[in-house]
């Protein structure tokens, strides 16, 4: 996967969190908080994976 694709995946993950936050708070003010927490951690994990992949690709291309 190219660097641009990887970065796009990371950006989309966080954009998804923002969209999900709006939908979840409309769904339930109390219970929506917990899936949101899980989504934030998932997006962060995706970001970490993207970072590692980009670093590996850049390291390989040198």
């Amino acid at each position, binding site marked *: 996967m190219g660097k641009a694709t990887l970065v796009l995946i990371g950006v989309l993950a966080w954009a998804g969190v923002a969209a999900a936050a709006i939908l979840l708070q409309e769904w339930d003010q109390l219970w929506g*908080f917990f899936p949101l927490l899980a989504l934030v951690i998932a997006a*962060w994990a995706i970001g970490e994976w993207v970072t590692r992949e980009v670093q590996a690709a850049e390291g390989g291309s040198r």
Partner: protein
Amino acid sequence: MTVFGRVFENREVRDPSFLRFFFDNQGMAPVWLLARLYLGWQWLHAGWDKLTGDGWMNQNGVALQGFWERQVQQPEEGRPPITYDWYRDFIQYMLDHEWYEWFAPVIAVTEVAVGLLLIAGAFTAVAAFFGAFLNFNFLLAGSASTNPVLFVLALLLIAAWKTAGYIGVDRWLLPALGAPWSPGSVFRRDEADRRPET
């Protein structure tokens, strides 16, 4: 001069280790994540209600006009909602000039933006600052509600700016953008590009 020199000696007073752990250590990031999400969740909910409800984005900001009109009242007996005269005059000035027409959408959009930025952990300290600024003004206008708690949480997040967004977009934004006194990788690269080759 020597007395002043001794009193105001250029000596740095360092924070104790537990405070440095609390605000500067990435080990505290999960705690700040919870605080950040709670605060962002509250702002998003409050802002979304305004964004989709009546009187904020439409009807010329009539909801804000009503709030301001209630708060500037000075009852014959008892305390007025606003303690400081200068702040009451400020609200009255905005009322007289019908600023609620454009101020209401600004408040609604700002609340949603602060909520989303805090949830995503992007520009966390800046978002917390604007949140605290809103809380501060609501408190000055005589509306307590959840504002004291949200205000304190926002101040803590500002103090923990280096780690509060670590489980968030700031994990990548802060190293890239840096701070005014310490430019990040994006600006350092620009500087390197501008440097003439020798």
